[in-house]
């Protein structure tokens, strides 16, 4: 009985965090629109660039232009589920010291950040997905997968969100050791961009680079959901990729937990 009570109470605590985060995101509506426009800009740039690259060519690295177009849009969706704003919120908390106030609260820092992130993702990501899904459905020349693959794709996107959270969280925690958050965030973005397949499908890489990318967790953000969507793998392959994503989610979560307790020890010994 007691355990249930505690569980429901803590669940309420986290969900109210999420709701508050949603409210905040709505309050910054202009900021959201601008954020969206900002990532949309990148999408357009990439689209035009690839259009020029594919000019007069049927296929490159095994992908046709139609597949490439689709890939870009999927990449865009997967990436914009966790915005820059959510990311800097985590590192921001550590940098401005409000983390010490959080230590006093009976909340798990990691779970709390996840709750907040999910809250703002509902708004930011939700709108993004609706808009781009409409575009996808309406536009021509876009690849549309079969039912099973669509389902698996949606699951994969959700998993990719958790993977991205795991990475962003760890990057945010790194701010404990350095005092320049923006540097770490940019470094993370650059590394993630390349290795997740957001910039260019992993199949374009020379084989040694491709192999390296497949070993890292970043591919779970774009490459995995995109591969499932484009039916580059059959159902069993897709399930395998999903399993890999989930494995990474767990590994990243645990790493985050470990880093957090290490960091807390540092704070309580050295005093913020």
């Amino acid at each position, binding site marked *: 009985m007691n355990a249930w009570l505690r569980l429901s109470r803590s669940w309420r605590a986290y969900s109210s965090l999420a709701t508050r985060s949603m409210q905040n995101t*709505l309050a910054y509506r202009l900021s959201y629109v601008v954020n969206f426009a900002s990532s949309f800009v990148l999408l357009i740039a990439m689209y035009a660039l690839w259009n020029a690259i594919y000019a007069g060519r049927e296929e490159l690295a095994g992908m046709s232009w139609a597949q490439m177009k689709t890939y870009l849009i999927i990449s865009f969706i997967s990436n914009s589920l966790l915005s820059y704003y959510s990311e800097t919120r985590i590192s921001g908390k550590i940098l401005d010291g409000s983390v010490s106030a959080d230590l006093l609260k009976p909340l798990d820092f990691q779970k709390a950040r996840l709750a907040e992130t999910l809250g703002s993702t509902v708004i930011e990501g939700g709108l993004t997905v609706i808009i781009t899904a409409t575009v996808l459905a309406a536009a021509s020349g876009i690849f549309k997968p079969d039912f099973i693959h669509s389902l698996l794709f949606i699951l994969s996107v959700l998993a990719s969100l958790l993977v991205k959270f795991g990475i962003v969280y760890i990057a945010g925690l790194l701010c404990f050791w350095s005092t320049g958050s923006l540097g770490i965030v940019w470094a993370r973005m650059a590394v993630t961009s390349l290795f997740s397949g957001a910039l260019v499908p992993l199949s374009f890489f020379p084989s040694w680079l491709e192999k390296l990318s497949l070993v890292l967790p970043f591919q779970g953000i774009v490459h995995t959901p995109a591969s499932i969507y484009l039916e580059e793998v059959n159902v069993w392959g897709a399930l395998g990729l999903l399993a890999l994503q989930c494995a990474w989610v767990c590994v990243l979560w645990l790493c985050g937990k470990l880093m957090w307790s290490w960091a807390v020890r540092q704070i309580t010994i050295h005093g913020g």
Partner: protein
Amino acid sequence: MSFIEIRQLTKQFRQAVKEPGLAGAVKHLFSQKYVDKTAVAGINLDIEEGETVAYVGPNGAGKSTTIKMLTGILVPSSGTISVGGIDPYRNRMENARTIGAVFGQRTQLWWDIPISETFSLLKDIYEIPEPLYKRNLEQFIELLGMKDFLHLTARRLSLGQRMRADLAAALLHNPRTVYLDEPTIGLDIAVKQRIREFIRASNQERGTTVMLTTHDLGDIEDLCSRLVIIDQGSLIYDGTLAAVKDRFARERVIHFQLEKADLPALREALDRMPKVTAEKLERQHVSLRFDRFHITASEVASAVMRCGEVIDFRIDEPGIEHVIKQVYEGRISLDEQHADKQTAAGTEANRR
């Protein structure tokens, strides 16, 4: 024309009205409602050079808004301001050379460099001649006791230290006018004393005009000769501190410590004394509140001494605090007519 001349100064703000909660946030996405709020409503004020003025009022009365307009960082909705012949908004930089300001919660110190570096930077910004800079700096370091933390960055200072440094920074270039917005907020009494002495010295030695907004009425008593009270955007009192105290801070409380008081006799005596209320009436402790315009302290003391042996006593003089509190609560009005009537009644009582 006075040094600082303010005519019909008005400032209005537009504020967005939003309902609380998630529903309210969504609604606000689609339609915004605004309401006009008047922070300062047509005030007139004249200040001569070298005066020390306390600018007092409850929170939200319009104090900070007035100061911001005086320093040129906020533009009035209507009305005129002239400081030493300069319009602080239109000629902001020219005005900036002649003023110093301390805003209680915000600092003008550079956060991550030693205080001494901040001072050096200010010397270049205000183009302070070297001999003057050296002289002022030495004097300030001494008066404000800053030697111990000169080498520390502003980030590492305690509130008291930071406030002292801010004050030094504000006066380093010998401004003609200094605006102090809550300069002693949150400080301990020792630091407050130092700061008040410093401001007083500056006013007396250099003739700096001081305009001080504060909730700390000790600041006012120590520093200011003139009191201006603003409430809900309008001035409700403008005059000397002494006049206010003479007219309104007339109550005294005497606390007696007695061997053994004859309480019935005392009560009888109290009934015969005009406008004396007993705050505490016990065999060994008696506290009596009286209006000194109606009865003198010696009369009250004699009455008590007749009813028992007095071991010890002390007189509480309620400071300006009491008056201000009553003004805020609307219990007394500080306009001239009413005050005259009260004084007349008081002198009548004294003659009796």
